[in-house]
């Protein structure tokens, strides 16, 4: 009995050591970048700079001397439009695939599913040509309109609505609601968790997106933050405190959104990941 107990506690200690060790590895680069961004330029490569010499000059620098404020604005505008658009488009489609009967429903749904398999890079060339023809390079339209739908999120919404009880719409129909009414008055108010998961996934994907904006936005004032940070790093990589200040500026908003919504986030990954 005593033997077993001591064995258990050694195991426990091992688990805690492992958990904390990996937490240090996961957090380390963030904390080191934050610390470095606060160091004076001359001391960037000094490992330890005392706290009283740390300052926010590099943040002031990138906001006043460089267009980081503008890039932040672009990122926020694009991410908001894309997120709201996706919520509307994907939720409506997901609901129809789950709860409304119409001819060819199965076929249309399988087209969406099949498209999910094809990597986005396949359409890089044609989309570029299309947007160039429309004059949408270096515009907000170019970064938002083509990205308002996600087959994956439609699938997520459909799975969610499939899981709701059958009597819901019958009750609504008996009360005289139209199909629109049933959706807006009965199902939508219950869809909170699915909507937050969708919001966070879409926002994250768009906030961090790089391939499309680096292709579609070539003028500095239209850069989003990832593109701006990349170009700033290219030109000013001697000033690591400023580069990393920009890095924190790109990272922090997403981390805040994540920590605030993390319950839904985790649930979202778990349900979409498994089913």
């Amino acid at each position, binding site marked *: 009995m005593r033997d077993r107990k001591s064995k258990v506690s050694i195991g426990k200690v091992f688990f805690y050591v492992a958990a904390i060790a990996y937490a240090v590895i*996961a957090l380390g680069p*963030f904390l080191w970048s934050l610390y470095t961004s606060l160091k004076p330029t001359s001391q960037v490569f000094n490992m330890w700079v005392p706290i009283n010499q740390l300052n926010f000059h590099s943040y002031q620098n990138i906001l006043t001397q460089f267009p980081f404020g503008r890039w932040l604005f672009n990122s926020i505008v694009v991410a908001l439009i894309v997120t709201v658009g996706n919520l509307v488009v994907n939720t409506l489609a997901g609901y129809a695939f789950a709860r409304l009967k119409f001819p060819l429903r199965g076929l249309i749904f399988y087209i969406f599913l099949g498209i999910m398999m094809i990597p986005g*890079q396949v359409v*890089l060339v044609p989309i570029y040509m299309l947007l160039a023809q429309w004059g949408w390079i270096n515009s907000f339209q170019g970064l938002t309109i083509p990205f308002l739908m996600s087959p994956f999120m439609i699938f997520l919404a459909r799975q969610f609505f499939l899981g709701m009880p059958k009597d819901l719409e019958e009750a609504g129909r008996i009360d005289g609601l139209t199909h629109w009414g049933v959706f807006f008055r009965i199902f939508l108010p219950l869809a909170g968790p699915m909507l937050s998961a969708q919001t966070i996934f879409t926002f994250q994907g768009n906030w961090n997106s790089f391939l499309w904006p680096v292709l579609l936005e070539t003028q500095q004032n239209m850069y989003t933050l990832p593109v701006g940070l990349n170009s700033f790093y290219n030109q000013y990589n001697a000033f690591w405190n400023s580069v990393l200040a920009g890095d924190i500026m790109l990272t922090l908003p997403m981390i805040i959104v994540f920590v605030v919504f993390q319950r839904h986030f985790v649930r979202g990954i778990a349900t979409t990941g*498994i089913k």
Partner: protein
Amino acid sequence: MRRRKRISRSATSQAIAGYLFVLPAFVSLAVFIGGPILYSFYLSFFHFSYLDPQNATWAGLDNYLHLFVDPVFLQALTNTAEYSLGVVPVQTAIALLLALVVDRVKGKSLFRVIYYLPTVTSTVAVAVMFIFIFNPTGLLNTILLNFGIHGPNYFFDPNFALPSVMAMAVWSTVGQFMIIYLAGLQDIPEEVYEAAAIDGAKGFDLLRFITIPLLRRTSFLVIVMGMIGTFQVFDSVYVISQGNGGPMGATMTVVLDLFNKAFKDMNMGYASAMGFTLFAIILILTLVQNLVLGKED
């Protein structure tokens, strides 16, 4: 009779609502995915430059066949395969281990949040952080020096560049797959363990004969997702090599090559062929894994 009529009217109104609900998504699909895919497939049979569209010429299968003798593409493909083969097993193993650990400690949700932070972070931001940490005189080499090890110039040394990108990729994706494993662990009923314990299984045996086999579907998902993601690697190598895949092509990947062929060389027919080849590779690998891992289902 009247009843029938009412039903059919209701069915019609339901169908109309259904089509209207799907319409925005369908328009987006047709204009920005379906149409472009077909057009891209068409382009892949032409020698086509965006700058000179008048002079497009029929190429037949030339673009596809040329891939087999294009040294840059072959290196990109080799690098991408090496990257995938290195990253996927390591990230899967670490994700599983972390899930097993986190499942057994207090403060599960705190650890989960911390481990997941790298995954929510932009790849560009991660790459810039790691360029600084992997600097010849950066944090990592300073730590190594305490152990008497002189570390290399990671991202800028042809021998170390790709492994360094791989290490960075593992760091940033492990959290995501750990969460999927955690959900998988939660789905294993407690009784299975109790039954096994009655049969005398303990510790490592439980892991080997119960946990890992029962996580089969989860592992399949993690491996397929990992593989699809690794074959599309672009952001990190673009930032690290400034788009040229250096040093000496060490970080050239399929998507980076595709990007350069399309928008630097303006060789868009060829780039389209490359896109479909990438799609075919991913599809084949997914099917093979489905066959191997899903055999028993």
